[in-house]
């Protein structure tokens, strides 16, 4: 039996683990943690074997489809893109689950925690495995529900409950766009088939969708006087979904608040199971994006903007986890940018972006778990109260520094020496350079390079403030238990070496996604349909451009060291409410004031909702009137039902007579 036949078990085992843990967890030690751990470990082994098999036999893409109803199917598709994602998600989730045993050991609702994280993982895995957009959407929504449950895990805390609601509602805006995109796509395909879909053709399956890209591109809609291709509309709406899920501006507001959940949940959301879904969606449907160059531009610009926008806020946060949250938003911006520059370099963009996604998963999970380790030991998130933690928690400190180096992107260009983050981020920045070169649009490149500088500053600011110097308060603390430090060490190794060991190979492997027996797309041809040509491969830029990312990373480290390590600059003048820039950043660009106080409360709640309520009152009156009349009619009709059998018999006979006359009369009239 081929290992591919077991692929369906990958999401199924965690899903079963959810059921078992949910019902039996309370009776088992550690809230039944062993069940999801065993299930996810098995899923990981299967995923890994499938990936290795695919590496050796690139042709053996796994596809299984079963008719669901009408023209819809359920099925799995494991191509290189899905395979690497599956392996990463199962692996990171496995480590987080193991780590959680220690982290959650004091919580009374452990079994609920493990059940929900298992479901979370299962949903994400089934999202990755889907071979059709409908199943992907269903899993997408499940992921959303799980994130709601987990962010609000400590639902007794009002802040957690609010954050959960905020995450759910904000991502919902994206979900609605995504759904709208699916609906348009469906109706277009239905039109392309002239409404008769042959048996065995599943129109929501990716190969079917991709096969009809030329027809979709040929359909035009007139929006405000502009001719817009349907493929552009659909991809923009899909991207809207990705913006919500992957925390891109302006729907990123839920991500920092999502820190209210347990830190392990944050790690799960940020590294493995949720925010990457948006990037994955764009990567999965990349052939459609390639044929819609306008959308790719939006993706590139918005990605680059998000990268720098979030990085600026990361610099001023004092909460350990919030810094990391903004860092995630910023890095997701890089991934989106990586996909957006597909307009210049084609399918290779997917390889680059997913490569960064994977590396990010490793170092971000590591950062969060380290932060969790610190919080677990010390009991506070506030960096201003920490300092010198490296002395009490050497392993945690060492692993976190490795993660920081990886995030900042330290490495030597042109060699295999470098942290994982270096290879992937560097590739994206260079891609942005090529993008600028071929299109003349340099803004994404400039934004990405400045964001790299800011990234380096904020992460080393965090390192210096937390781990070095003298303790600012008396916090006590100790190194965490082995069940927590071992996952840290494993992730640290990957954050250090994974990139260097796989770099070129990985890109080639993932870029093969769109050329195999399931989908065979000619990417350059699609690009020409969009009216542009693809540029050369990454790696032939001027030397300065190659070294630029490293230079800004080192510069960032130095700046952070000077300010927060040696304290050569007195920050008190800068860090004050009188400094307008600091104030702007610290208040997070007044997003709360704009989004919550102004848009949500003033416009939607007080303005729109009030107007709707008045109209609704009117409807209510009409509806109530109708229902009153109907119910009264019912009451009076009841009187016919006398209970006297003679009445009944009369009704039958009279009915017969009446019907005969009625037919006769009506037939005469007609």
């Amino acid at each position, binding site marked *: 039996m081929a290992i591919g036949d077991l692929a369906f078990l990958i999401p199924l085992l965690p899903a079963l683990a959810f059921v078992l843990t949910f019902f039996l967890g309370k009776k088992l030690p550690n809230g039944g943690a062993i069940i999801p751990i065993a299930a996810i470990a098995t899923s990981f082994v299967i995923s890994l074997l499938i990936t290795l098999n695919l590496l050796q036999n690139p042709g053996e893409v796994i596809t299984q489809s079963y*008719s669901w*109803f*009408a023209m819809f199917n359920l099925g799995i598709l494991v191509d290189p893109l899905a395979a690497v994602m599956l392996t990463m998600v199962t692996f990171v989730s496995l480590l987080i689950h193991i780590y959680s045993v220690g982290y959650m050991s004091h919580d009374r609702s452990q079994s609920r925690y493990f059940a929900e994280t298992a479901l979370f993982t299962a949903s994400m895995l089934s999202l990755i495995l889907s071979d059709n957009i409908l199943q992907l959407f269903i899993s997408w929504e499940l992921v959303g529900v799980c994130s709601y449950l987990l962010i609000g895990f400590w639902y007794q805390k009002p802040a957690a409950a609010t954050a959960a609601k905020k995450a759910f509602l904000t991502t919902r805006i994206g979900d609605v766009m995504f759904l709208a995109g699916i609906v348009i796509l469906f109706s277009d395909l239905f039109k392309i088939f002239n409404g008769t879909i042959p048996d065995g053709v599943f129109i929501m399956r990716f190969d079917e969708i991709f096969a009809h890209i030329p027809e979709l591109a040929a359909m035009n809609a007139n929006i405000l006087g502009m001719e817009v291709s349907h493929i552009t509309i659909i991809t923009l709406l899909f991207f809207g979904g990705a913006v919500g899920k992957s925390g891109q501006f302006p729907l990123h507001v839920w991500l920092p608040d999502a820190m209210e959940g347990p830190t392990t949940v944050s790690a799960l959301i940020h590294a493995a199971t949720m925010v990457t879904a948006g990037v994955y969606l764009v990567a999965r449907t990349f052939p459609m994006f390639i044929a819609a160059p306008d959308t790719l531009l939006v993706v590139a610009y918005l990605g680059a903007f998000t990268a720098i926008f979030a990085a600026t806020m990361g610099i001023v946060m004092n909460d350990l986890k919030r810094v990391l949250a903004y860092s995630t938003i910023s890095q997701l911006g890089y991934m989106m940018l990586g996909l957006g520059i597909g307009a210049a370099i084609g399918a290779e963009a997917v390889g680059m972006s997913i490569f960064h996604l994977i590396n990010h998963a490793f170092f971000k999970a590591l950062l969060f778990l380290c932060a969790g380790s610190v919080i677990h030991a010390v009991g506070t998130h506030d960096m201003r109260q920490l300092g010198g933690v490296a002395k009490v928690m050497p392993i945690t400190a060492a692993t976190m520094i490795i993660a920081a180096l990886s995030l900042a992107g330290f490495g030597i260009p042109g060699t295999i020496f470098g942290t994982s983050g270096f290879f992937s981020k560097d590739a994206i920045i260079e891609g942005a350079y090529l993008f600028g070169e071929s299109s003349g649009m340099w803004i994404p490149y400039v934004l990405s390079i400045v964001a790299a500088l800011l990234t380096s500053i904020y992460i080393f600011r965090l390192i210096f403030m937390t781990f070095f110097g003298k303790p600012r308060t008396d916090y006590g603390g100790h190194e965490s238990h082995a069940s927590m430090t071992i996952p840290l060490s494993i992730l640290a190794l990957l954050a250090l070496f994974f990139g260097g060991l796989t770099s070129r190979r990985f890109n080639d492997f993932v870029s093969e996604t769109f050329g195999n027996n399931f989908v065979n797309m000619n990417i350059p041809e699609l690009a020409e349909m969009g009216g542009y040509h693809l540029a050369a491969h990454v790696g032939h830029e001027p030397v300065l451009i190659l070294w630029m990312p490293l230079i800004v990373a080192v510069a960032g480290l130095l700046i952070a060291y000077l300010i927060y390590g040696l304290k050569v600059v007195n920050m008190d003048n800068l860090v004050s409410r009188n400094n307008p820039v600091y104030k702007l950043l610290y208040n997070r660009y007044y997003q709360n004031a704009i989004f919550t106080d102004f848009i949500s409360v003033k416009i939607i709640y007080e303005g729109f909702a009030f107007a709707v309520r008045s109209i609704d009152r009117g409807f209510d009156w009409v509806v109530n009137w109708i*229902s009153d009349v*109907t*119910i009264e*009619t*019912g*009451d009076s*009709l*009841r009187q*016919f*039902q006398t*209970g006297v*059998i003679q*009445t*009944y*018999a009369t*009704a*039958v*006979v*009279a*009915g*017969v007579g009446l*019907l*005969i006359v*009625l*037919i*006769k009369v*009506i*037939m005469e009239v*007609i």
Partner: protein
Amino acid sequence: MDLMLLAPELTLVVTGLAVLLIGLFIPVGSKKILGFLATLGILAALALTVTSLGTEATMFDETLSIDALSQFFKIVFLVVLLLVSIASIKYTEGSDNTEEFFSLAIFATIGMMFVASANDLMVLFVAFELASLATYALAGFEKNNPRSIEASMKYFMIGSLSAALLLFGISFIYGMTGTTSIPAIAANAGGLVTNPIGIVALVLMLAGFGFKIALVPFHMWAPDTYQGSPSVVSALLAAGSKKMGIVAAFKVFIIALIALQAEWQMVFAILAVVTMTYGNVVALSQTSVKRMLAYSSLAQAGYISMAFVVLTPMALGGGILYALSHGFMKAGAFIATGAVVYMVLSQNKNTENPDHLDNFRGLGRRMPITALSMTIFVFALAGIPLTAGYMSKFILFSSTIQSGLVWLAVIAILNSALSLYYYARVVKYMYFLPTDAERVSEPLPYTIALAVAVIGVLAIGFWPEPFVHWAMEAAKVLIPGGI
């Protein structure tokens, strides 16, 4: 001729007789075994019917026919009987007359199955009466309960009147065409069209079937009988016996009297609208759950009657699928009510109106499985998606729109919306109104029957494809090439 074609019926006959005979010789305490025996026999008959799907044959000088339509409806009847029989294991516990109960239910179903196969009006009538007589007795099974007796008497008297009308109609048909064979009537229908007596015959037969289907104005016995009879018998009547009327009407009107198509389509249009509206409106103000279900059942009969009006293969397929869905939903709802009644009576033997809505208060806590099943059934009856009721309504209503009868579809959809009020009220009572009563244990047989019905309802809702396919196959028997 192959007698194996009648294997399901023969199995039931043997089971019914065996239950009756064994019951004579064993003490009351061990009569529980009869229920298991009956259930086994029914399962066997069901299995035999399912394996015979796809066979086509005629038997006994073409008076019986085995085809996709007959087998589909036989499955409907057997499924309903199975649910009733499982639940009745508990209901008949401790009764002297267990054997009569099970054998009567089985004989009634044999009658229904022969109606489904009948290819001759005489066979149809005799089978119709077999089913009717058995159910008259069943309705009065609780012979010490005046309500049950009243239910039975009303049912019997209106039933006799209707049987007389039906026979009267058949005699006219025979007089005009010289035959009672259903296909032969269609071939010799010339006289029926030219002579006004054709319309009289049509309406008389409609009265006979309309009594079983419970179409207004032939419906008046139904609320009293459904309410007064034991719940399991109501389930058999509403879910099984009603379908017998429908399959008989399908055969007689669509095959035999196709020449009078314009006339009966018009009558059915009127009756469908009146029946569904009347049923839904009166159901709004019922406080007895069984009575509410009875009126809801009127409404459902009104929806199914739309199939006659639209008369496209898709509409007929929808109507036939509706028959199966309704079998699961309505039988399930009555059995769930039966479980509640059983619980209420076992706490206080002399409760008036044990099926009153007030007894459903807080059922979600008291009897969680029953409450959840009941919720699924009433939502299915209302036509909430992912249930059997939704799929059936969807096919039926969309076929109505496709054939241009938008006004009819609009009335039906408005009716559906109206019905949600009284269905949701049950759910409100079960989950949102407080009670101080304790949780009670739910009898296993009821629970099993409910679980089977829930599976049926959800299976058709989630995986409608094969069921729709079977229903469409059955519809092809009625109009082979489409009209």
